[in-house]
């Protein structure tokens, strides 16, 4: 599926980002293996993936840091490597890891950045700091900030010039929940004002909450994509229950194994509270299939004389899809 085309609705004129068949190598290692996707103007597109999936490499190509390998890459219709100087004033970048001049204060840092950003003249330092909740830290040296506070300062710099396109590489890493919510609000506000956002994150909840569309990358390829609903609907429904017994008891009592349901093997997790059993039904399963699965499980439970605690039918989650993608490839 490495050549999967993730096409945004809309014409080429509406596209902020176009990536077609991008391959990116570092020596013998192929970090990105022929990915394709487009991001429409005003859209928030999330790239999800494990460490080393190729998200940051893709970002760095789009940001103009790395010369694209094979394939087609355009940002606002321009080559991000060759037309870097034209593109940069229109984009904001929040790196996964970028340093600060630690001896400068927060205020001096924002002032410096403002002086070097087009269209940042109208953004006041106070507004920028208020946006990320760092007003009280204006006079504090950057090296004295916590990791989460540095991340917020990062965000303030990235959005200072009100960019048309914002690259956010794991923006909330290291933030406490309150700061994370505040950051999501900033991102949503920018998007509401028309900004396009390309986001990478490890936090699936973040993608579910913010993204219009997302793609799951693994080992340099895009494995699934679409709106959150489209991706999650592909996860299939789940039937889950708990057996009130320890791992040893469960293994002894069900030596021949737990039953298959509609040809599907259970995923069993042993915890202190009991044995958790989950069946993930086929992609796009319907209610009738779930009911049939429950009926067959109840019949099995009656037959072996066991109680199925907390029996439930639940919708698959983004996490399920993510884990399945990662598991499939492994």
């Amino acid at each position, binding site marked *: 599926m490495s050549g999967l085309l993730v096409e945004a609705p809309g014409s080429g004129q509406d596209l902020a980002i176009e990536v077609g068949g991008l391959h990116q190598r570092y020596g013998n290692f192929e970090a990105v293996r022929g990915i394709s996707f487009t991001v429409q103007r005003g859209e928030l597109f999330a790239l999800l993936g494990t460490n080393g999936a190729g998200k940051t490499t893709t970002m760095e190509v789009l*940001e103009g840091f790395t010369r694209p390998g094979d394939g087609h890459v355009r940002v606002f219709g321009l080559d991000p490597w060759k037309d870097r100087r034209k593109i*940069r004033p229109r984009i904001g970048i929040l790196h996964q*890891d*970028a340093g600060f*001049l630690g*001896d400068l204060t927060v205020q001096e840092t924002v002032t*410096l950045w403002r*002086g070097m*950003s087009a269209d940042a003249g109208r953004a006041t330092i106070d507004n920028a700091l208020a946006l990320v909740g760092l007003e009280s830290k204006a006079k504090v040296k950057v090296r004295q900030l916590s990791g989460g506070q540095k991340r917020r300062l990062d965000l303030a*710099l990235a959005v200072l010039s009100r960019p048309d396109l914002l690259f956010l590489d794991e923006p909330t890493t290291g933030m406490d929940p309150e700061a994370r919510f505040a950051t999501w609000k900033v991102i949503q506000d920018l998007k509401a004002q028309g900004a396009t956002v390309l986001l990478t994150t490890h936090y699936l909840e973040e993608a579910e909450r913010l993204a219009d569309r997302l793609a799951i990358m693994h080992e340099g390829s895009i494995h699934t994509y679409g709106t959150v609903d489209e991706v999650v609907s592909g996860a299939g429904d789940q039937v889950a229950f708990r057996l009130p017994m320890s791992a040893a008891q469960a293994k002894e009592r069900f030596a021949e194994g737990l039953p298959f349901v509609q040809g599907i093997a259970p995923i069993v997790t042993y915890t202190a509270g009991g044995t958790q059993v989950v069946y993930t039904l086929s992609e796009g399963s319907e209610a009738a299939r779930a009911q049939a699965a429950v009926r067959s499980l109840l019949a099995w439970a009656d037959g072996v004389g066991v109680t199925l605690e907390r029996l439930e039918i639940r919708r698959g989650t983004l996490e399920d899809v993510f884990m399945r993608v990662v598991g499939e490839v492994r």
Partner: protein
Amino acid sequence: MRTDVLHAVRLARIDLTMLGRNQTALFNVVLLPLLIGWMYTTLAPEQSIEGVPADLFILTGLSGMMLGFVVFVNLVNSFTARREELVLKRLRGGQSSSVAIFGGAGLSAFALYAFQTVLLSVWISRLGDGGMPSNIPLMLLTGVLGVAVFALIAAAFSGITRNAELAQISVLPVLLVVIIGSPVMGPLSVFPEPLQIVSKLIPTTPVTEIMRTAYLGRDFIGDGGGTLTVAEQWIEALPSLGVLVVWVGVAALLARWLFRWDPRHG
């Protein structure tokens, strides 16, 4: 172009602000070379060198050696530390061009060098036979070329320096060559033969000779030692300026080849 200049000026101002907050670095790059100059004057073996009082001869030639400290050591440390701390990555991710980022570093180094030269001139003017420089434009041009050479060499050197701690050590060989090989304490002709060869090859020699000539208005580039008019100083300095221009080209190639924006791993 205008944007690049503006960005370079802003970056240079920030560089100077931060240097002002780091007293150790400030001492090393600004005061240490002047202290070495003072030490040289106390160690001078003779009362006069080439017909000039020894202290005057030494101090007017100190400018070449100063480049080693205020530009080379300063910028190798700065480039290496900023690369490893990912500050260069941030700067490069902004709207400033590479030219502006390098230009800012070079500009701050030049400002420091100019400040140091002014201090040195004040010092020289207070010596018995000292006075004001004879040819300030020639000094300025030589200073610009000298700073450009050493800023570019510093960029190249930072690329082969693993981290900020090692930068303290990796600069030493160059610094030693600059201190020993520059004709600060005497003309090239009094150096031992092998050192003369080294000295002729390093860029601090033309800087030292031109600066001394431009300051005293006498020929310390050729063999004469005679008084020169301003025009004659320019003519006499031309070959040495040419050498510096060649050095700028060589250093630019080295910087292009060796400089790294991203941290060295492994």
